[in-house]
């Protein structure tokens, strides 16, 4: 950067920054505030209370949807991370060959395919499968989410692997480790921060997915986001705010956890 140039001295820069932050965080702040509303409105504040949190926690449908959301997110993110780890090892721990870059692209391009396209494609496939097999359980949702999450999980894992010195694996082999031992004792532990990052990314993406879930789910398989969407079409109460706020807390905890983990491993 040129010496003497400071963006803060630009006229209007401070105001712009303030507006940007307001646009990012004000709606969330309002949402959180009204979660504590004692009244029935999401527009008029009538004193503070935890009644909507209590109401949400006692709502069978909310509990059902929350449990289902967590089940799907954990299973899908786990599956996606497993596949992404294998894919990342396969594409980085090999010499360059024709078609390797094409394979890497095949893993990352789905990030740019509009989600609605994936959703429609999955709808067609899954509805056929439901008819053929007669199975209508959560499996479809889990597999669909996993497929969607693979490229997200793949990116941090591959980044970590390609930044990792391969002489460490050579050193392990030199010190009598078989290929499997070298992977288990050297590659995997060093890769762990990338794997955790990949899992968390997949987890969060699955947790708040609406589009694919709406298209793929069978009757009575609402996840928390699709349940909330359904509620919005009827009467809106601060219960929605309370659920969202709880959701927000969960993501903040995850982000902090991830930040701590990745910083600890960097030293």
């Amino acid at each position: 950067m040129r010496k003497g140039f400071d963006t803060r001295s630009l006229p209007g820069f401070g105001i712009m920054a303030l507006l940007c932050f307001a646009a990012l965080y004000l709606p969330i702040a309002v949402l959180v505030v009204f979660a504590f509303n004692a009244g029935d409105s999401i527009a008029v504040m009538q004193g503070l209370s935890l009644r909507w949190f209590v109401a949400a926690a006692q709502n069978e449908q909310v509990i059902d949807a929350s449990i289902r959301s967590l089940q799907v997110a954990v299973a899908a993110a786990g599956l996606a991370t497993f596949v992404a780890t294998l894919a990342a090892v396969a594409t980085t721990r090999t010499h360059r060959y024709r078609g390797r870059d094409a394979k890497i692209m095949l893993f990352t391009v789905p990030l740019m395919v509009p989600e609605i396209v994936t959703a429609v494609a999955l709808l067609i496939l899954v509805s056929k499968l439901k008819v053929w097999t007669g199975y209508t359980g959560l499996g479809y949702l889990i597999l669909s989410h996993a497929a969607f999450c693979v490229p997200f999980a793949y990116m941090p894992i591959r980044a970590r692997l390609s930044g990792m010195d391969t002489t460490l694996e050579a050193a392990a082999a030199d010190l009598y480790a078989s290929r499997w031992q070298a992977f288990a004792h050297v590659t995997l532990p060093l890769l762990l921060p990338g794997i955790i990052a990949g899992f968390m990314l997949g987890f969060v993406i699955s947790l708040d997915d609406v589009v694919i879930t709406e298209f793929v789910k069978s009757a009575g398989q609402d996840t928390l986001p699709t349940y909330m969407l359904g509620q919005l079409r009827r009467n809106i109460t601060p219960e929605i705010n309370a659920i969202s706020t709880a959701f927000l807390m969960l993501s903040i905890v995850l982000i902090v956890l991830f930040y701590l983990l990745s910083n600890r491993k960097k030293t």
Partner: protein
Amino acid sequence: MRDSSDMGESKVLSAVTLAGVAKFFGTFKAIEGIDLTIRQNEFFTLLGPSGCGKTTILRMLAGFETPSSGEILLDGRDISRLGPNQRPVNTVFQNYALFPHLSVAQNIGFALKMLGRPRPEIRDTVEDMLALVQLSGRGDQLVTQLSGGQQQRVALARALAPRPKVLLLDEPLSALDQKLRKTMQIELKRMQRETGITFVFVTHDQEEALTMSDRIAVLSNGALRQVGSPHEIYNHPVDRFVADFIGETNLLTGKVIRQDGDCAHVVLPGGVTIEAQCPHAVSAGSEVTLAVRPEHCTLAGPEAPLSGFIEQVVYFGTDTHFHLRLPGGAPLVLRRQNAADGRALPQQGETVGVALAPSATRVLRD
């Protein structure tokens, strides 16, 4: 490609034998047909300029590369097709390659753990190794908390812990500062003596090779030029490359007049005839290259047949270098040890007599 130091000796125990080992990368010939015997329990150095193939030879010994042709024998067994984890040869990597997620002790015990040795044995060996590299009490530290010199010691301990038949070291001292390097040179020699393990050491630093090695192999462009003790390599270089690469050398050209056994009479371009060592046969009238070290040239009185014009005088504390121009136009560097009496030395612009020690002046093979 001759191994002069093996001549006339009784059969010695060999640790590693390279028989006609060559290595191609595509069509590029990195190593050409090398025959070499590394003896048990010796400090052996591969010396040569950057890119001459030292690392490639080491990687073939370690098992990271397979020779394109030829055999590598370890205790008489061909190991050239075995993987790195299947041969009792360990490496100290140039960048150490320590495992950053493991403690010092876990790094040192890694090989024994992979070999499935019992825990108490691993613990004892790790303690011994920590003592050997003078890091006792540091076993629980993370390797990332150590200084460069300490990491180097851990890398050594880690490679020595499984007691390999041969330890390979690829320019291990090049990343250290001058002072630490001198200390580590002595340390490495001590560790080699104490463990009795054959060390194969790679360096491009001829001074380091001369001070540390039992024997040295000089390489250039993937070919072996000379193998011998530091004394042989320094005092009896077989060719122009070795003479030029090892230490400072004056190279003079001249024409042979006659040869009496090991002594050749050579006339220099200025018309002065000098005597030089020449163990190989040369015919009268042929052009040859002579090598003589600066410390084997002396200042002589004005009556000496050979004279030199002083172009520059460089003072070094322990000695003084005179850069001379000989009558035929050839440059010659002469080194003179400084005396304590502070006697006046010849100055730039003077012409002085020069004597070349006949026993230290050699006719080189081409």
